[in-house]
C-alpha cells in the first residue's frame, strides 16, 4: 500500500498525470473508487482483498477524460480492460499510466502497453473456483433444466441496466435497447424480454468480456449474469484461440474471421 501511495504522490507532484483513479474507504466498511488529484490525497488510497471493482470503466468517461492524462490502480481485470479498450480505439497509449497490482498485492509499473501484454500473457486467467463450480453445474444440466434455471434467474431481472452501466465494455452512446424504431427488446421486465436482453448483451460482449464480474456485483437482484459472458469467453477461447485483454492491437472477434474457422453443425 505504501509503495502505491508513494508512486502516486510522485506522479502527481511531477505532473506526469493529472488524476489517479484508485480505491478508497467508503461507508460501512465498503470500498469506493476515488479520484486523487492532489499529491497529499494519495494517502487516501488503499488496497486490500475488498478492492475488486473494475476501475478501468472510469477511464473512458468524458468527465475523467477532460481531466487530462490519468493513472489507474490496476489489478488483473483492470489491466485486461485497459488493453481491450485500447484495441477498440477507446483509449490511447499516451493517455493512461497503468499502476499494476500483482495477486500478491505488490506494485508493478509498466512503461508501455507492450509490457502490460507480456505480463498478462504470463498471468493466471482461469475463473475463480466458486464461479467455475456453478458453470460446471449448469453445463451438466439437461437443456430443459438449463432453460428452467435461466428463466427462473432472469425473471428476477428488473431491467435496471446496472449491469450495462457497470460494464467497461458497454460504452456505446446509443445502446441497441434505447432504439425504439424498431424496438427489438421491450423495456418492460417481462420474462421473455429479460432473456432477450441478457442474451443480446452477452452476444455483444462475445470476445470482449474480461471476466471482471462487475455485472454480477452490480446486479441488485443478485443474478449471476457474469456466467453468460463467461460462457462466451470460454467459447471464443476454445474456438478462435483468442481472449479479450490480451493485446492492444488484436482484432475484434466478431468483426474478423478466419477462412478456416471450424464448426460441426452447418449442413
Amino acid at each position, binding site marked *: 500500500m505504501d509503495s502505491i501511495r508513494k508512486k502516486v504522490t510522485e506522479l502527481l507532484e511531477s505532473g506526469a498525470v493529472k488524476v489517479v483513479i484508485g480505491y478508497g474507504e467508503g461507508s460501512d466498511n465498503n470500498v469506493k473508487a476515488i479520484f486523487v488529484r492532489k499529491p497529499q490525497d494519495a494517502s487516501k488510497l488503499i488496497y486490500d482483498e475488498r478492492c475488486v471493482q473494475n476501475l478501468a470503466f472510469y477511464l473512458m468517461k468524458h468527465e475523467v477524460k477532460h481531466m487530462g492524462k490519468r493513472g489507474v490502480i490496476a489489478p488483473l481485470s483492470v489491466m485486461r480492460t485497459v488493453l481491450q479498450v485500447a484495441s477498440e480505439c477507446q483509449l490511447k497509449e499516451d493517455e493512461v499510466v497503468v499502476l499494476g497490482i500483482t495477486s500478491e498485492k505488490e506494485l508493478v509499473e509498466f512503461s508501455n502497453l507492450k509490457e502490460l501484454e507480456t505480463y498478462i500473457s504470463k498471468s493466471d486467467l482461469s475463473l475463480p473456483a466458486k464461479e467455475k463450480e456453478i458453470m460446471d453445474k*449448469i*453445463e451438466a*444440466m439437461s*437443456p*430443459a*433444466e*438449463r*432453460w*428452467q*434455471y*435461466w*428463466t*427462473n*434467474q432472469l*425473471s*428476477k431481472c428488473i431491467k435496471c441496466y446496472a449491469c450495462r452501466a457497470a460494464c467497461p465494455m458497454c460504452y456505446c452512446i446509443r445502446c441497441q435497447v434505447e432504439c425504439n424504431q424498431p424496438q*427489438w*427488446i421491450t423495456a418492460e*421486465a*417481462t*420474462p*421473455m424480454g429479460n*432473456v*432477450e436482453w441478457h*442474451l*443480446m448483451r*452477452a*452476444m455483444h460482449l*462475445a*470476445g470482449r468480456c474480461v471476466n471482471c464480474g462487475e455485472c454480477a456485483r452490480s446486479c441488485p437482484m443478485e443474478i449471476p449474469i457474469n456466467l*453468460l459472458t463467461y*460462457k*462466451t469467453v470460454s*467459447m*471464443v477461447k476454445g*474456438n*478462435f484461440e483468442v481472449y479479450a485483454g490480451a493485446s492492444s492491437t488484436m482484432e475484434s*472477434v*466478431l*468483426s*474478423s*474471421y478466419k*477462412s478456416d*474457422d471450424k*464448426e460441426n*453443425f*452447418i*449442413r
Partner: protein
Amino acid sequence: MADFEPKIVAFVCNWCTYAGADLTGTSRIKYAPNVKIIRFPCTGRIDFMLLMKSFANGADGIIVSGCHPNDCHYTSGNFHARRRWMVFRDLAEFMGIDVNRVCFSWVSAAEGAKWAEIVNTFTDEVRKRGPYKEYIDLAKMEHKNVIL
C-alpha cells in the same frame, strides 16, 4: 401431436440459397410446404435477434442458409455470419434454448435438390420434436413468480 405441422421460418441469402430454392421450384422437385422463406441480401445481415423473435412469434424451427465459404457475393459476409452462429449457438445452448430447432446450411444457387432435402429432413426433425411450447409459453408470460 399426429396433426401437428411445424411452422418453419427460413432466413436465406438472396444470391445463393434463394436462387437455389428457386431452382428447386423450376425443377419441379416437391418439398414440404411448412417453410416460409425470407430473403436477405446476405447471411452476414442476419441478426441473431431475428431468430429469437421468430421463436417468440410461433416458429417451431428455423433454417438459416447462405452461400458456401469463399462464394459469398459480398466476399466475406458468410464468414462473419459463421462466426456469429458459432458463438450464438453455444450461448443459446448454455441458456437452454433448443438449438436443434435451428438448422444452418450452405446451399448454392445450383443446389436445388439439396435445398429440398434440407427442408424435408429438417421439417421431419421438427415435427418429431413437436411445437416449441416452452418458448412460446415464456413469451406470453407477463411475469413469472419464482421462489428460488
